[in-house]
């Protein structure tokens, strides 16, 4: 970036310390210290604590006991359900979100529809999950809007849908913030699809079907997969929605961490949360790494 600066201006400032030697070289870097210290204390230290804690016995000293316990049935089942929940809500969210993004992108940028959709999506994707969980409880829970409606019309159970507080309900409520997130992250890629490419394809005799299958889809595939991965990580890391919805039991990993933090002992281990948290870091880091790699491929074209 700085190489392209048109002025010779920055040279003296940057060159002076370089000429006077090593001791001055770090001069301006000192300005970064407050930031580095803050992030170090409140982000790096907790993360490192988790990583070390996962390999420590409760009385201190190295131990693989907690890692081994991750293979027990309870944490394994929670992990499996977490992965299923993340995967299904990511797939549904990615497909429907891409569809909604396409419906929106075909409207002019100034249209009411587009503005409304992007604004609503921004709120639903970024605002906390507690309110969204409550919105669905008010819809399908006891005394909810749809519950009453269905009970009156088709004679459904007036006490509400108990599945709302189990896995299917979690998928539904997660979809409610996954679709908006997909719209937000996928819209730029769709906007990058140039009309000239379509014109070029049509000029060469392509049908609409051929344009979509042979030009647009291959171009969008990395962006789509990348966005889907982001959705997966987002669902896997989410806690608030599930915590507000499921008050007892721990069907998924984040809730198992809650149990371990609040009700002391899980599987006979006081600090089992460390190992579970490490498991979360590993999964999310893997997915985000893949995402970064796909993002690099996307930016070649779009």
């Amino acid at each position, binding site marked *: *970036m700085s190489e392209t*600066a048109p*002025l010779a*201006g*920055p040279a003296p400032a940057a060159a002076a310390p370089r000429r006077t030697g090593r001791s001055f070289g770090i001069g301006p870097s000192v*300005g*970064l210290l*407050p*930031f580095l210290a*803050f*992030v170090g*204390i*409140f*982000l790096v*230290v*907790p993360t*490192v*604590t*988790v990583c070390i*804690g996962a390999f420590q016995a409760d009385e201190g000293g190295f131990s693989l006991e907690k890692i081994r316990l991750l293979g027990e049935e309870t944490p394994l089942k929670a992990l499996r359900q977490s992965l299923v929940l993340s995967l299904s809500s990511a797939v549904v969210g990615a497909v429907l979100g891409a569809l*909604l993004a396409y*419906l929106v992108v075909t409207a002019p940028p100034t249209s009411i*529809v587009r*503005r409304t959709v*992007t*604004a*609503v999506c*921004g*709120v639903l994707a*970024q*605002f*906390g*999950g*507690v*309110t969204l969980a*409550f*919105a669905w409880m*008010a*819809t399908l829970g006891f*005394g909810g*809007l749809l519950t009453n409606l269905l009970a009156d019309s088709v004679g459904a159970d007036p006490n509400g849908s108990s599945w709302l507080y189990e896995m299917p309900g979690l998928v539904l409520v997660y979809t*409610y913030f996954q679709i908006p997130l997909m719209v937000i992250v996928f819209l730029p890629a769709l906007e990058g699809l140039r009309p000239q490419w379509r014109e070029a394809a049509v000029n060469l005799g392509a049908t609409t079907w051929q344009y979509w299958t042979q030009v647009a889809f291959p171009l969008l595939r990395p962006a789509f997969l990348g966005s889907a991965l982001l959705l997966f*990580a987002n669902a*896997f890391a989410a*806690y*608030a929605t599930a*915590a507000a919805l499921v008050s007892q039991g721990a069907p998924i990993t*984040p809730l198992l*961490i*809650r149990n371990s*933090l*609040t009700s002391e002992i899980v599987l006979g281990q006081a600090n089992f*949360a*460390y190992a*579970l*948290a490490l498991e*979360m*870091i590993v999964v*999310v880091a893997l997915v*985000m790494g893949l995402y970064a790699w796909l993002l690099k491929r996307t930016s070649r074209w779009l």
Partner: protein
Amino acid sequence: MGAMVWRVSRWLLLAAFALFFLVPLVALLNFSTRDTRTGERTGAAWQALVEDPTMTEAITTSLLLAALTVVGMVVLLVPTMIWVKLRVPRATRLVEFLCLLPLTIPALVIVVGMDNVYAWVDYLVGDSPLTLTFVYVVLVLPYSYRAIDSALGSLDATTLSEAARSLGAGWFTVITRVILPNIWPGVLGGAFIAIALVLGEYTVSSLTNYETLPVVIVAISKANAPESMAAALASLLFAALLLMMLSFLDRRRRHPGGK
């Protein structure tokens, strides 16, 4: 003919999406304005938002936290990013990496690992919900970073600072009176997102047992469901308002630079 089919199906699909997203919100409104026993319409739940001491206290705490987080974010991030841009460009990647790191490390993980850090915070600053500010600043870093970065990117900061320096301005003046006014919309955008995130934050506050608004919403939901529904809808609408303002700000910024 084909265009007609497309137009109709487009509107049908949009209507289906609108229904999916609006029904739960309408349900919230419906639930919060109804008496659970008699089924009559009542504004009691909404009135309680400003009268119930537990609720008002939680709202105050959350708003204070949001304000403090914004202040912390601005004080920590803005000078650092300007400084990196002007004086230490080789640290760009490092700062970007650290700022985006919270996207990879879930808030839940930070809660699990922050006992030791917060033992010190409690010892040094005292035990108060407002100490959550420190974690919240970390949690909003990725979003604030992006907002400020895009504003800084569209600015020839080097030339501006050279001009100011050659006229005798010190670095403090350069940052606060030359660069900052130019990236103000970006900073404001980051601030809005930070406020929305903090007002909805549940993970950290619930697991550290501090009574912020979302924590109280969940806590009172068993005893007084309509009130918690009203609070949920109110906070959602408030966040919507903030992000709407942000989008208008965005459009205003784009117009002059449109050429």
